[in-house]
């Protein structure tokens, strides 16, 4: 009773777009069932809300110095206490989310776009361009990220734009390396060879054929890098290179107040530290869940 014809063959082509849609939906459903993702989503979500609404939801003005109430311990009036200028720590923590959450995602997007392009080109063409680019990438990676950023920002001076550009450029080689590895794996597959045989030009094969098939690793890399971008922005602010020194910033507030720890004033330091820690852990939990989803 067997027929030579494969019964699935004729219908396989028309339902393909639906299949990818179903698969995507399925992925989202799985994601929202993962406790890791939900916890990360909750933690990061709090800070995203703070970043969006900022001043609207703070109990006090975050930039209203009050010399009469310096270093007040946490109380009903000031839940997180006040800092050395008498500013409300809770308000500064809420508003401080914005400075990190504007620069870090923009920098990550820049790095991902550039890195993906370079990774596609080097992975697809290989040969000399590939070798040369990878040497440069290795050279960049030989210096710790934070030092590269430090040197570049010293040279050009800190501002929101330079922070985005510097962190984006520093991430580019790392992302390029990941994308390149994924592209190398894809290039051996038949659909790429078929496209080449059809005489499609390089850019078409790279962006229309290969790119949709390497989105998994790119999304994973993006979430992981976003965590590092927040890490880097916070660290640079701590070292004195905040995007905008006039705006409340967690890293900057911590560096301004940690010398006072010895005096027993722990609250202006502890709460912004907890904010950074929860935001980064949240993003990384999301990254972890996303990675598990794409690796299954």
């Amino acid at each position, binding site marked *: 009773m067997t027929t030579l014809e494969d019964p699935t063959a004729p219908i396989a082509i028309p339902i393909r777009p639906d299949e990818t849609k179903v698969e995507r939906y399925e992925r989202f459903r799985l994601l929202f069932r993962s406790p890791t993702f939900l916890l990360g989503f909750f933690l990061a979500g709090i800070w995203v809300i703070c970043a969006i609404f900022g001043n609207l939801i703070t109990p006090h003005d975050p930039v209203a110095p009050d010399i009469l109430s310096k270093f007040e311990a946490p109380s009903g009036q000031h839940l997180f206490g006040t800092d050395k200028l008498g500013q409300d720590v809770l308000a500064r923590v809420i508003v401080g989310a914005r400075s990190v959450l504007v620069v870090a995602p923009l920098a990550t997007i820049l790095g991902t776009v550039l890195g993906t392009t370079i990774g596609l080109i080097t992975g697809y063409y290989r040969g000399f361009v590939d070798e040369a680019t990878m040497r440069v990438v290795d050279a960049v*990676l*030989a210096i710790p990220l934070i030092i590269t950023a430090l040197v570049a920002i010293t040279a050009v001076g800190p501002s929101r734009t330079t922070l985005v550009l510097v962190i984006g450029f520093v991430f580019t080689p790392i992302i390029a390396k990941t994308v390149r590895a994924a592209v190398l794996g894809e290039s051996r597959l038949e659909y790429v060879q078929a496209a080449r045989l059809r005489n499609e030009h390089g850019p078409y094969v790279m962006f229309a054929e290969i790119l949709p098939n390497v989105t998994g690793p790119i999304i994973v890399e993006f979430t992981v890098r976003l965590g590092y971008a927040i890490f880097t922005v916070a*660290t640079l602010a701590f070292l004195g290179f905040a995007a905008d020194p006039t705006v409340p910033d967690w890293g900057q507030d911590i560096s301004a107040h940690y010398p006072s720890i010895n005096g027993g004033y722990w609250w202006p*330091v502890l709460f912004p530290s907890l904010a*950074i*820690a929860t935001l980064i852990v949240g993003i*990384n939990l999301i990254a972890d869940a996303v990675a598990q989803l794409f690796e299954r």
Partner: protein
Amino acid sequence: MGRFLLTRLGLAAITLFLLSVLVFVGANLLPGNVARRKLGNLADQASVDQLNHQLGTDKPILQQYWNWISGFFHGDLGTSLTFNLPVSQLIGPALMHSLKLAAFAFVMVVPLAIVGGVVAALQRDRLTDRIITIGGLSLAVVPEFVTGIALILIFGLWLDLFPVSANAPDGSSILTQMKYLFLPALTLVIVLFGYISRITRAGTIEALDADYTRTAVLKGLPRRTVVRRHVLRNSLLPTIAVIATQTGYLIGGLVVIETLFNYPGMGKLIFTAANGKDFPLLASSVLIVGIVFLVATLLADVAYSLLNPRIRYATAE
């Protein structure tokens, strides 16, 4: 093996050359007029020109690069603008300090992370595993200054067990020095634990799933012997590679940790140089950091290939 070493050395040399160009461009070209940057906008043109001439920054770029790099390999690392001292005199002690801190951290973190990773792998997907993996990674991704501040608050302020500054008084015994270094070293341990244990876990799981482990179990070896003789030997290979790649990261972390604990190492030096726009000091210390990283990776590659013949032969072909 000789061929493998030569290829590796060749690649490292090329990377080193590119690195030196990048560092030079970053530290000497991006700032534009070095003397103007140093003296500020109010200085008159004559003194800017004079300082530029004194620093050699009025010469053609290629010549400047050549002067810097040839001096570097002859041991002349230039003169610091802020300290007015030869850079080598500043880097020497700083490097020693950083190495001391890093060595202390490594001695603590390597055994801890290996045990953690192996335990997590043996308990795969159970609660212990989730705690070690997620907990370790969460701690690893938090910036060093946040971890450091948490430790300062807990051990320095509330429990009052350890000093908050990393600087032991001059001439104190090794034990006292270790006490002062404990909090900064612990910060590094917490950051590195997650990475190293994760790789150990992955390596151990791979070895546990391998055919030779199944054979060992099926032929009736006790579990302890299987783990010790068949699993661990294979799982520790990737760990070695990761430990070496963490050296570069380690130095990056040191910038923050040394600044936080006011410890006079390489990280603090680079930070001071960057803040003071001290470009000769900055360029030479960053290049030294890069060289340390490249040498460490090279050594790890060699060690790895000595332990794993498959890689040695694959590259030699």
